[in-house]
C-alpha cells in the first residue's frame, strides 16, 4: 500500500513536470514568434543566403564576353567561331580588325578573352595539318581566366575531332573525363550543404544562447530557479522550440534547393533529417554552453559570432578546402562541428551515400555534443551553488 501511494505521488509529480514543460515550451514559442528580429534571423536569413549563394555567388562562368580578331575570314574560322558563340560560356562582343582595337577592349575591362585567328587559317589547317590560333585572357582574376581557357580548349578539341571524322590517325589517346556526382560542375552542390551548416550554426547557437542569457538579464531566470521547475529543465525547455524551428528551417532550405536551384537529393531523406537533427542538437548544446558562461546578451552574441561563425566559415571546408591548409589548421578543423555536418550532408545529398559511409562523422558529432552537454550541466550546477 505504501509502495502504491509512493508510486502514485511519483507519477503525479511526473505529470506536473510534463505540464510545466509544456507551459514553458508554449511560452518560448510566444517569445520567438512575437519578435520580428528573431523571426528575420530565423527565416529571412536562410532564404537570403540560399538565394545569394545559389544565384549570385557562383564560381561558374557564364556568358563571358570575348572579342575576335579574325584575319583569315575563311570557312573553317567561321565554323570554329560559330561553335564558340553557340556555347553558353561565351558571347562574342564584337569582331575587331586590329590588335590595337583588341587591346583597347581589354583596357576597358569589357572582355575576358580575345581570340586571334591568323591569316591562312584554313590553308594551314588543311594543307600543313597544323594551324595556330592565339587565345589571350585577362588574368586579373586567375581562376576565371583558367576556367575560360579550359572551356575554349575543349571547344577547339571538339572542333578538331569533327574535322578528323573519317580519317584514321594511329596512336591517339582520347581521355574520357567523367565528373562524378556533379557532372555539370554546378556550384550549388557545394554551397547548399555549406549554407545549411552555416544557418543552423547561426540560428541554433546564437539564438539559444541569447534566449537563455536574456532571462538572466531580465531577472526572470531567478524566478524560474526559485520555482519548482527543475533548473536543468529550464535549459531543456528553452532549446526545444529552437530544435523544432530549426527542423522547419532545414525543410525550407531543402525545398528551396530542390525547387529553385534544381539541386537533387540523391540519398535518403530520412537519414538527411536524422543527421540534421543531430547537428542541431550539437549546436543547441554549444548555445547552452555559451549561455551558461556568459551574463549579457551582447557577450553571448559576440562569442557566438566570433567563436562559432568564423570557424564554421573557415574550417568547414565549404569556402576553403581543408586539404590545402597547413597541418595544424587541418587538425583544428576536426573540432569544428560544421565540418562533419558538411561532409555528411554532401555525402547524403550529392553522393547519395548511406549510413555505412557516414557513421564516423556521426560518432564524432555525438561525442562533441555529449561533451558540451556534460560541461554545461556541470557549470550550470556550480552557478546555482
Amino acid at each position: 500500500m505504501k509502495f502504491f501511494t509512493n508510486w502514485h505521488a511519483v507519477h503525479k509529480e511526473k505529470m506536473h513536470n510534463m505540464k510545466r514543460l509544456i507551459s514553458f515550451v508554449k511560452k518560448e514559442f510566444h517569445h520567438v514568434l512575437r519578435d520580428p528580429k528573431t523571426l528575420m534571423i530565423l527565416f529571412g536569413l536562410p532564404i537570403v543566403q540560399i538565394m545569394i549563394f545559389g544565384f549570385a555567388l557562383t564560381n561558374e562562368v557564364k556568358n563571358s564576353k570575348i572579342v575576335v580578331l579574325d584575319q583569315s575570314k575563311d570557312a573553317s574560322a567561321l565554323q570554329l567561331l560559330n561553335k564558340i558563340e553557340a556555347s553558353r560560356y561565351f558571347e562574342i562582343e564584337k569582331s575587331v580588325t586590329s590588335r590595337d582595337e583588341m587591346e583597347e577592349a581589354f583596357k576597358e575591362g569589357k572582355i575576358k578573352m580575345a581570340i586571334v585567328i591568323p591569316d591562312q587559317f584554313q590553308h594551314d589547317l588543311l594543307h600543313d595539318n597544323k594551324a595556330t590560333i592565339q587565345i589571350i585572357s585577362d588574368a586579373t582574376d586567375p581562376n576565371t581566366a583558367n576556367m575560360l581557357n579550359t572551356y575554349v580548349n575543349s571547344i577547339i578539341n571538339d572542333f578538331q575531332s569533327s574535322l578528323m571524322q573519317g580519317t584514321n590517325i594511329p596512336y591517339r589517346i582520347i581521355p574520357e573525363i567523367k565528373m562524378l556526382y556533379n557532372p555539370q560542375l554546378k556550384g550549388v552542390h557545394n554551397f547548399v550543404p555549406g549554407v545549411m551548416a552555416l544557418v543552423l550554426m547561426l540560428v541554433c547557437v546564437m539564438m539559444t544562447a541569447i534566449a537563455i542569457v536574456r532571462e538572466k538579464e531580465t531577472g526572470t531566470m531567478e524566478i524560474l530557479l526559485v520555482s519548482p521547475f527543475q533548473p536543468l529543465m529550464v535549459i531543456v525547455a528553452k532549446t526545444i522550440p529552437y530544435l523544432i524551428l530549426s527542423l522547419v528551417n532545414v525543410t525550407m532550405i531543402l525545398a528551396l534547393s530542390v525547387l529553385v536551384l534544381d539541386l537533387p537529393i540523391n540519398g535518403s531523406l530520412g537519414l538527411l533529417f536524422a543527421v540534421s537533427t543531430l547537428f542541431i542538437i550539437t549546436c543547441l548544446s554549444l548555445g547552452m554552453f555559451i549561455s551558461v558562461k556568459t551574463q549579457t546578451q551582447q557577450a553571448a552574441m559576440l562569442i557566438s559570432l566570433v567563436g562559432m561563425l568564423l570557424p564554421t566559415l573557415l574550417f568547414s571546408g565549404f569556402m576553403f578546402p581543408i586539404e590545402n591548409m597547413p597541418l595544424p589548421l587541418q587538425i583544428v578543423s576536426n573540432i569544428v562541428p560544421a565540418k562533419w555536418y558538411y561532409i555528411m550532408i554532401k555525402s547524403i545529398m550529392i553522393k547519395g551515400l548511406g549510413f555505412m559511409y557516414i557513421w564516423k562523422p556521426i560518432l564524432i558529432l555525438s561525442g562533441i555534443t555529449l561533451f558540451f552537454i556534460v560541461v554545461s550541466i556541470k557549470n550550470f550546477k556550480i552557478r546555482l551553488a
Partner: protein
Amino acid sequence: MINMKELVIETRNLSKRFGDFIAVDNISFEVNKGEIFGFLGANGAGKTTAMRMLCGLSIPSSGDAMIAGFDVYKETESIKKNIGYMSQKFSLYENLTVEENIQFFGGIYGLSNSDIKEKGRALIQKLGLESESRKLVGSLPLGWKQKLSFSVAVIHEPKIVFLDEPTGGVDPLTRRQFWDLIYEAADRGVTIFVTTHYMDEAEYCNRICIMVDGKIGAMGAPDFLKKKFRASSMDEVFYELARGAQRKDA
C-alpha cells in the same frame, strides 16, 4: 492568533562567505506564519545574499535554516514548492500578455488548468486589469506591472513569499496600493519576507531586521526599535546603525 506561534522561517548562525569576504555573518532569526517581516540594510549589507540562501538559490557556507519546515541544504526542492519570489528586477515576461504570464507561471508552479483559469480571472478582476488582460505586459505602467508581478508570485498560495526590493522606482501612491496587496496576502496566512530601503515601508512591517555589514544590527517591531534608539522615525534608527557601520570600516 494561535497560528502566530507557528514558525515558517528559522535560521541559526547562518553565514555566507565568498572567499575572504563574509557577505552574511552569523545571522539567527525567526519569522512567524502570517507575519510581514522586513529586511533592511544599506546596499551591500547582505540582504539579497541572505534572501537567496533562504530561497534555495544559494547554498549557505555554515549555519542552519529551515524554511516552511524544510532544510535549506537537503530539501530545496520542497522549499521551492512552498515559496513565491519576486526579484528586484521586474520579473514577468514583457512580450507575453497579462493572461499568458498568468498561465505560464501558474503552469510552472504546477497549478491545474481549471485553477489557473479561476485564479487568473480573480486576479485580473482584483487588479482591475480586465481591459488590459490581452495586452502585452511590456505596455503596462511600472506600478501595475509590479502589482501584477506580486499577484503572480502568490498565485499558487505559497506559505512564504520573498520580495526583493519590490517597489523600486514607483511613486508613493502606487507603493501604498502595493502594500494593500501585501496586507491582504498576509491576512490569508501568507508570510511576507520583504527587503527594502524605503523607510516608510519599514513602518508597514510587523517586525524588521536591520542588517549592518552582514550582521543583524537590530531586530524588532518598528515601535520597539524607535523606542530603543530614542528616535522619532525609522529613518533615524537606520542612520544611527549605518553610522556604526562607517565607524567600523574606518
